[in-house]
């Protein structure tokens, strides 16, 4: 399959020991898969240990159930690799849509914006970050 501009990989930036991913516009399913692969690979095989992953979705207009699942899976995989994931900058409309769909993303830690996500990662020791559920896998809670 040829890679059209719409499915080009999302860049994963390293900011100190934090990986920063900024999602823009609509993310195609293949790109989301690729992103999950990229992040997990960087955590596992990166040159230096990764202290956290920040996924900024402030530029995203719509999040569908597939992307919601991929985000939860990224967080779950990262946790298995002893790294925390923070989702930042979700717009109200996107949050409402996700909640209406019953996708509460229970395993994800969230923050208002990239700045507070970074300070959240910096200030809290890795074991005490709030929001970690008992069950790390993606679950759909009843709406």
């Amino acid at each position: 399959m040829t890679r059209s501009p719409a499915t080009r990989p999302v860049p994963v930036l390293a900011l100190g020991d934090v990986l920063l991913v900024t999602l823009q516009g609509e993310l195609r399913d293949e790109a989301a898969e690729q992103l999950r692969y990229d992040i997990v690979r960087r955590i596992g095989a990166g040159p230096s240990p990764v202290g956290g992953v920040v996924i900024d979705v402030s530029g995203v207009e719509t999040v569908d159930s597939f992307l919601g699942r991929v985000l939860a899976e990224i967080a779950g995989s990262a946790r298995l690799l002893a790294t925390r994931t923070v989702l930042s900058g979700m717009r109200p409309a996107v949050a409402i849509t996700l909640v209406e769909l019953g996708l509460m993303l229970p395993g994800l830690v969230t923050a208002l914006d990239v700045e507070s996500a970074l300070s959240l990662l910096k200030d809290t020791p890795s074991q005490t970050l709030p929001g970690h559920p008992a069950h790390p896998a993606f679950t759909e809670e009843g709406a």
Partner: protein
Amino acid sequence: MQVAEHDAASEVPQRLGGFLERRREQIAQRWADATLFRTVFIVSRGEAVEACEAVVDALAEVARTGRLEDIEATGFAAVREQLGRMSASRARAGSSPSQIAGEVAGLREPVIALLDAEFADPGDEQAHACRLALTVLMGTLRLVVMETAVSAGEELIARQRHQLLEVATPVIRLWDGVVAVPLIGTLDSARSQTVMESLLEAIVDQRARFAILDITGVPTVDSLVAQHLMKTVAAARLMGAECIVSGIRPAIAQTIVQLGIDLGSIITRAGLADALAYALGRQGIVVSPAPAAGAIPR
């Protein structure tokens, strides 16, 4: 003979129109003393007469076109304009729709009296036909006024409903990074949606880390409302803000438990003050009383 009768039948509306135009002044003068016009135009009688004349003109126009029973007749547009505003002001003053209808019906008597004076013999067939046509026309007028009054009432209700939705859900900034919505009154789906949207917008605008939903003023919580509250809390969490529900009354707490709704994942506090204290504490802010708590000397 038949042709003549047919002519007479189509002649009646024309004749009525002619009569209305001729007697415009007299009718207007009499109507200006009727309850409907007198109570609306209390400042000047001249104004009332002018309004009456406009209505008579409109009726004459309708009569000329012969559509005596048609409330969509073009002539009635002017009537809607004039009498609609008047009936609205009467309604605001506390008149019931049937009272307004009665007042409009009261306009018929003076015109009938004038019409009878037109004919030498009031028992004559022509006079009878004209009186019948005029009665029909006045009946249609009453219908037009009622229709206008009712639709004006509906507009008012729709506008007020919209205003209520807007006014009843203020989002207050309690502290740096702490916003609160004090909910008052019954929550329904539309209101819950407005609350959710304005709270989430406020979280973005104020960069709020804590959002407090205070339901002290909510009389009842059913499963639907509880569900909306949980959705709001979940959406706020997705955006990175922590949501606290405060002010759940004992009776409501019992209902929620009886309904089997699990609010376990939601942070709750007894009152707005407790919720604020929790939010401040989580931010590491400590509020201590001032050293001297006495009255300030004058």
